[in-house]
């Protein structure tokens, strides 16, 4: 237990600074994911074949390649073409582009899951497209999307650990750093694991709680 006490005393502040980096990384890549996801979902449900084709290609390319490879292409690959991004920026772009592809599928499914009769009823009352989307379809789609969206956010938090590979000083990077200085790998990574858990578990419970607000059909 002394090992843990010493680690906590000497290295915890350093590791915890990584948490703020992890959270910043999650927040900005989540924003980018939501924007790209909405654009992707609208493109996939659009009448234009070109837009649908582009959106489908985007989703399939991202889904068919490893996240780590996407990160390396943006960080190392682009550097060959004089696009030198900071590790943080590269990680936000890579995770945002990855997340956008997944969320576009989730958003599309949510919008399509709203019963067609809802749109018909709204139309018959004289509502127009944007009002129907905003007042009738989206509020119902959000409730349908909530559980997969919550899972996505939790997955994203864990995926930010990939940024370790391009030296972004987030939680995983700092834990690795401490473990190589102290050679207490098991203890250090256990602590890091508990920190990840402390962030993700409340989120997971929060999503469960929000699900209860789904109105009975």
């Amino acid at each position, binding site marked *: 237990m002394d090992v843990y006490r010493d680690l906590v005393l000497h290295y915890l502040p350093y590791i915890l600074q990584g948490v703020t980096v992890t959270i910043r990384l999650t927040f900005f890549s989540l924003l980018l994911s939501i924007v790209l996801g909405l654009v992707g979902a609208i493109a996939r449900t659009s009448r234009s074949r070109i837009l649908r084709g582009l959106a489908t290609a985007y989703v399939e390319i991202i889904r068919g390649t490893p996240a780590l490879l996407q990160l390396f292409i943006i960080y190392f690959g682009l550097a060959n073409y004089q696009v030198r991004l900071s590790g943080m920026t590269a990680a936000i772009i890579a995770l945002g582009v990855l997340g956008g592809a997944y969320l576009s599928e989730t958003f599309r499914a949510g919008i399509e899951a709203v019963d067609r009769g809802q749109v*018909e009823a709204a*139309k018959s009352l*004289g*509502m*127009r497209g944007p009002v129907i989307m905003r007042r009738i379809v989206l509020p119902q789609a959000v409730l349908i999307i909530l559980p997969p969206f919550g899972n996505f956010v939790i997955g994203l938090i864990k995926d930010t650990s990939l940024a370790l590979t391009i030296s972004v000083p987030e939680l995983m990077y700092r834990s690795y750093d401490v473990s190589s200085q102290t050679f207490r790998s098991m203890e250090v990574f256990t602590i890091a694991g508990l920190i990840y858990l402390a962030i993700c578990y409340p989120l997971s419970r929060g999503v469960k709680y929000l699900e209860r607000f789904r109105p009975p*059909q």
Partner: protein
Amino acid sequence: MIETVGLAKRFGTLEVLHGVDLRVDENEKVAVIGPSGSGKSTLLRCLNWLEVPDGGRVVIDGEEITPASDLARVRVKLGMVFQHFNLFPHLTALGNVIEAPIQVLRMPRREAEAWGRELLRQVGLADKADVHPGRLSGGQKQRVAIARALAMRPKALLLDEVTSALDPELVGEVLSVLRRLAREGMTMLIVTHEMGFAREVADRVVFMDEGRVVEVGRSEQIFTQPRSPRLQKFLRAVIERVVMDEALGDEGSPASREPGAPRTSPDHSKR
């Protein structure tokens, strides 16, 4: 008020409507009856362009509907009530009623709420204003749906088999609301399987089969002196079902509960 000329609709290769002519005058109540799949609902849905017709004309309140028409504005004139209610599940009963007045008519919320509560009172649901549709019975849902349609002060109501999804014991409460609306002079186009109700409320009855209007007449004439063999056969089948239900002690068949008290109605044969 509502007129169609040669209305046609196809779904893929399936021709659902083959040139339907229909006319509903102001304050008139017209029932559309016929076997399942005869195109009754499609006809109704073509009137407010929920289905875009493939041919023919639709004229609502003197205005022909074309692809260039402002559909949202035309649709306000035609309140629609659906078989499966299509209430907005994320809104309360009152929320369902006032959503369109607020969003479309730009009615101030306070005024809309007072109006909505008054409509809910008229359909006997004053105490359910704050309840979500999921907690209402089928009959209550359909009454909210009627209040929602009325909230836009439509010039006519399109009723699409509004009692078909209801448990038999809940049909009566919905029909009594509609009966009152009919008495108050609302123009109504009623697609229904409730023969007793059609006979009682409708001025005229349109019998459709296989996408065509087979026979049109005053309600009394259609039910007592059907001319076409197809209508005769259809009515016999309906009566047999009613008799069967009664023999089985089933009070569910609304036709048996609604002895078609014939109603004096203005003569429309002169048109």
